[in-house]
């Protein structure tokens, strides 16, 4: 089957005219999933979601149905939707919120119905002004339509939704930091245990935190059944997956594809998808699952884009952001750019992340600027080791959350795959790549 022929579950409406409006949504069967849900018992829906085996789409890949089942039985419970998508080159939720906010609202309502939440918080990245505007407008319309609020569609089910813009911190996408932020505190990830907000979450109450894409699947699952969803994909990776293709391809963008049925080669080179590397350059490496994932080389092009397959080659599918890098890419600069991001977004709580990240950034910047020493290569690895002991994947950590351990992979992969390049920087006393992209210029990006 051609890779693009699978049904579009979450992106179907995105190209429709004014897809974000209630009229457009209703015209395309909007809120029918919710209406159907209200005729079912929460347990029936939960069973259906378990059948569908929807893996969390936020990066960790935890089964949504299993997460709901862990909810501590206590009142009140909260539902929080994580729309704080802030990682470089990750933009799938952005498109879903901006293009189909009602689908998100409907999915969240179905989830709230299942878990018995009377309050939903939609936590959306503050730097999505258009998404926030459309989501709030959609929410207002949904209230007016009777889909949200008191006695939804005349049923006994009542729920309120609040849209909460983030305040510019990447770390608030970490679910416990998100909860702290919602509580009005500084966005510090909470120490674990307790490991799951389902046990102790918002205001200490049991809380489900689901990703935007995860719940956006729910209306379709309700209308088409868990079986239909599970019929798509392969292994644990069921349904479709929205892949954000960025980097050095001809056609970057979001592609919803049947999960586990597509390889990196398909995604990058299929003319209907990535369309190949820009300028027909050579592919140098791929960041397969967001910038925190270990890089893979072109030899893995035929690996399937499923959670399991990517884990099998020592990396992760993450939230579905794929970044191919071509042969003009300076891997020192790439690693520096990634580390810089994570360090600057480090909440500052844990010493290894706060100080180790800053140190990595400074050493990489120095090597890139031609002032590196050969001893710096071992130093980099040891700093990485002190942030994430063993520098293995999945990472061990000395920190509260995984932001710190997100820094070593790009450094370690670079040193493993492109050690010569690091040495060239040191020995030539300059970056061997074209001078038109010196760090100074990048620093102003």
């Amino acid at each position, binding site marked *: 089957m051609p890779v693009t022929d699978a049904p579009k579950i979450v992106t179907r409406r995105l190209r429709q005219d004014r897809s974000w409006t209630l009229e457009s949504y209703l015209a395309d069967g909007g809120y029918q999933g919710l209406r159907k849900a209200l005729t079912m018992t929460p347990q029936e829906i939960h069973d259906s979601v378990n059948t569908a085996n929807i893996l969390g789409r936020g990066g960790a890949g935890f089964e949504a149905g299993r997460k709901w089942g862990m909810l501590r039985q206590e009142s009140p419970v909260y539902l929080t939707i994580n729309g704080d998508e802030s990682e470089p080159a990750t933009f799938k939720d952005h498109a879903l919120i901006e293009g189909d906010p009602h689908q998100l609202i409907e999915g969240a309502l179905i989830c709230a119905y299942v878990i018995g939440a009377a309050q939903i918080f939609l936590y959306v990245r503050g730097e999505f002004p258009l998404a926030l505007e459309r989501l709030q407008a959609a929410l207002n319309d949904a209230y007016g339509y009777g889909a949200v609020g008191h006695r939804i569609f005349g049923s006994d089910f009542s729920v309120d939704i609040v849209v909460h813009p983030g305040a510019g911190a990447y770390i608030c996408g970490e679910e416990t930091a998100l909860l702290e932020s919602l509580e009005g505190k500084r966005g510090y990830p909470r120490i674990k245990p307790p490991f799951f907000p389902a046990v102790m979450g918002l205001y*200490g109450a049991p809380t489900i935190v689901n990703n935007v894409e995860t719940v956006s699947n729910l209306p379709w699952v309700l209308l088409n059944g868990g079986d239909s969803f599970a019929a798509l994909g392969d292994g644990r990776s069921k349904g479709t997956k929205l892949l954000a293709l960025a980097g050095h391809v001809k056609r970057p963008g979001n592609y919803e594809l049947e999960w586990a049925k597509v390889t990196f080669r398909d995604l990058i080179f299929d003319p209907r998808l990535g369309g190949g590397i820009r300028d027909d350059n050579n592919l140098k490496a791929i960041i397969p699952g967001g910038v925190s994932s270990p890089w893979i080389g072109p030899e893995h092009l035929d690996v399937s884009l499923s959670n399991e397959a990517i884990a099998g080659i020592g990396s992760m599918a993450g939230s579905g952001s794929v970044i191919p890098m071509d042969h003009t890419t300076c891997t020192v600069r790439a690693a520096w750019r990634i580390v810089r991001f994570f360090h600057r977004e480090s909440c500052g709580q844990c*010493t290894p992340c706060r100080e*180790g990240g800053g140190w990595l950034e400074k050493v990489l910047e120095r090597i890139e600027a031609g002032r590196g020493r050969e001893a710096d290569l071992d130093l980099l690895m040891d700093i990485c080791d002190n942030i994430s002991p063993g520098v293995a994947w999945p990472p061990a950590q000395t920190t509260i959350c995984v932001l710190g351990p997100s820094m070593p992979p790009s450094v370690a992969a670079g040193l493993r795959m492109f050690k010569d390049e690091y040495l060239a920087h040191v020995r030539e006393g300059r970056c061997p790549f074209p001078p038109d992209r010196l760090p100074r210029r990048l620093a102003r990006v």
Partner: protein
Amino acid sequence: MSEDTRNEVPVRLVRRPLVTESAVGTPPPAPAASGETVNITIDGRSVEAKAGQWIIDAADEAGVYIPRFCYHPRMKPVGMCRMCLVEVEGPRGPTLMPACYNPVADGMTIHTKSDKAVKAQEGVLEFLLVNHPLDCPVCDKGGECPLQDQTLAYGPGESRFVEEKRHWEKPIPISDLVYLDRERCIQCGRCVRFADEVAGDPFIDFAERGDRTEVAIFAGQPYGSNFSGNVVQICPVGALTAKPYRFKARPWDLQQVESTCTTCAVGCRSAVQASSNEVTRLIGVDSDPVNWGWLCDKGRFAFPAAAGSTRLSVPLVREGNELVEATWGAALARAAEGLARARRSGGIGVIGGARLPNEDAYVWSKTARMVFGTDSVDAQLGDGVPAETILGLPRATIDEAARAALVITVAPDIKEELPVLYLRLRHAVREQGTQLVELTPAPTGLTPYAAETAFYRPGELAALAAAVASSEPVTGDVAGVAGATIEAVRAHVARAAEVGSPSGPPVVVVLGRPSLAESEAQVAAAAHVLAGLPGVKFLSALRRGNIHGALDFGLSPGVLPGRVGLDAGREWFEYQWGAPLPAERGFDTAAMLNESSRGRMGALVLVGADPLTDFPDSNLALRGLLGARFVVAVDTHLNASVRHADVVLPASAWAERRGTFTNVEGRITWLSQLVVEHSVSWPDWMIASELAERMGVNLAFTCLEDIWAEIERVSPLHHGVHYELLSGIRARDGVVVPADAATIAQTVTSRPLDPMADPGIASAELHRIAPSALLVTSVEMTPEPDSIDPSDHVAYPEPPPSGASGEGVPAVPRPLGAPPVPAPSGAAPLAQGLRLVTRRTMWDGGTQVQAAAQLAGLAPDPAVRVNPAVLAEMGTAEGEMVVLRSSRGKLTVPAAADASLPAGTAVLTWNLPGGSAGDLVDSAAVATTVTIEAHGGGS
């Protein structure tokens, strides 16, 4: 019917929050402490631990030190610094986890020194040093720095960091007392957590991210807290420094003794440190029943007052209008002569004594009765509660109050006057499930934590208390408090009686003077009815220094040493002292001043007393002093009242002499000497002895040990409380009297000095840097330079057991019982106007604050706070000057609007430079009323 009504009133329980509002992360839920013992293995050694204990605590108890920075035993763990990573064997193999927030479990195997753990610890330490400036030579923390010490013990041998360190402007003031050096900060969050979690003043927080993370104050809002010094104390690096200590000394030059702060009556344990015979610093010592290591800023920073410009150095005698320097001989002779004359004609009154250590209070009490022939002695200056009320009611300890089901405060603003007691009560409410009810005329620092606050009309406290304690149906308002509020308070009382507390009394009343403009008789009457609540105990909220020692040793009219009434103890004390006691109960301070103002007192002796400033009726105090025929002042500072004396005798101050102290609970602790006496000053007991000698009585005291031996012999309250016990190395927590033999035998200090929790505390281990030595496993206390050998002292006969007295030996007297039923207070109608409320604030015009140069400017400007409606009616804007008039005087101050105040109440802080409510208060009235008018307008 009334039962039913009561049951229907919902109790609004202030719930322990599910999550704290801590600015730094949300701590994990504390594991349930079941009290069970579990077996764990640490570094190959099997040890027992308590179920639910954090690994780091269990390791401490096992003598295994795990390095740490952010962990503090008195705060919740946050796991930020990651220094305490240890390897714990689990189902998926050994895993690194922080020891500070993971509880032990039965069978757990922990490795603190495995290769992986050591690598992680070295890594964290190297990271901490990445941006830490190595300016140790000019850092006040150098030499007592946990970062230095733990780098030596756990850090890598060399630094691999060659990049530019982070730079910031340094240091920056974050308050009047505290400086912040952000370059040195290691972001452990101890300060931020303390400010929020312990003190409830969350005015510092983290800003920025990554390695630009910094501790910061909010824009234009300094870290104004009564407890700011504690953040300096617990800072594990030199990032936070206190102005009074900066660059004053190097730690290794400091001499240290352990002592008790006497600034207020809480009795916080502290390490006092001096350099070159000058006190330079106080560090709170963790006394488990009292202060948990915390100090308030006044206690911590007021010590420079002892060397202040108004400190008395030499005796002074009056010559005409002047006080001129004199020798001790000449001054004592003049004083003795004048007092002897006064004894014959008019009589002597002794005012004050709360500054005195216990021994001195005893000697002055004995001197007054035996030598001066007077029972007119009063350590309270009309600003307290009748002694019989405090001494006669069942007493609670601070721990009992913290564990009670319900605490009722009838007290001033505890956050200002007994600050560390506020910390304990706040903790009890937030963490221990204690409910708090306030009966107060105006909001206090505890009001945000109270389940109910009954704002009563000043002068009507007794009526409110009666309504609370009654079961009669409430009809309408009582004392200005809505009936519904009284019902709610009653519901709390009923619930406390019903539910009780597993480890404390059901109800503890914290009893003090809610307002100095309301008579103490109101408090006595309120206490009397609240004493009827089932299982109730009382915790005193009298604030002044060693006031409880003064009362326990008889510096109160009608009360003899040992909480014995004058008549009950007459036979015993006359036998013991060998002299007749005054026949009649003497005057209290108000009566003494009143008599004196009419020229009827022969002499007034001011023993550390400044009635002009402290007596809540400045007008009467002035008339009293002016009317006295002869005034002797024994004091440390030249205060307003001392200037009226005929003879001024300079006394030694705290830390210049030894002694013992009695706190709000009746807990006796040891006061150590650290520096030599200032100039030619003498301890107070010596001054009394010398006066007695010159008036013909040899008290035969040559040292404190003599005095205490006599106290043990004559005071039934102190029987068995041996001096060696109080001054010994295990006596940090002191002894609460009365104490039976079993209690005394259990007097041990549970918490060792912990230089990682409170850096700068000198313990013998501090400089022995080896991983195992950083843990202080034994109790350390600097031995007294002249610690006593009991065999050196005269053996006194044991007091005969009560009721079995030998021939001619009277029976040991019984202590005071329940206070007498107070006479119905004068129902004289109060004048029209606003009811005045006045109480103290931490920084005020008092001697301690004003004599310490760096504190003098901290006192706020005086202002009267009234409900905005009052100002609106007058057409006066906030900040404009208004004139307050009472029957006693007038005062012109700016007005401030405070919507939390009842419309009929005006609040004016006591004794601020530039205007004291004392000018308005009428001590004879049940409550002082004032009129208010715009300045320059009207009549």
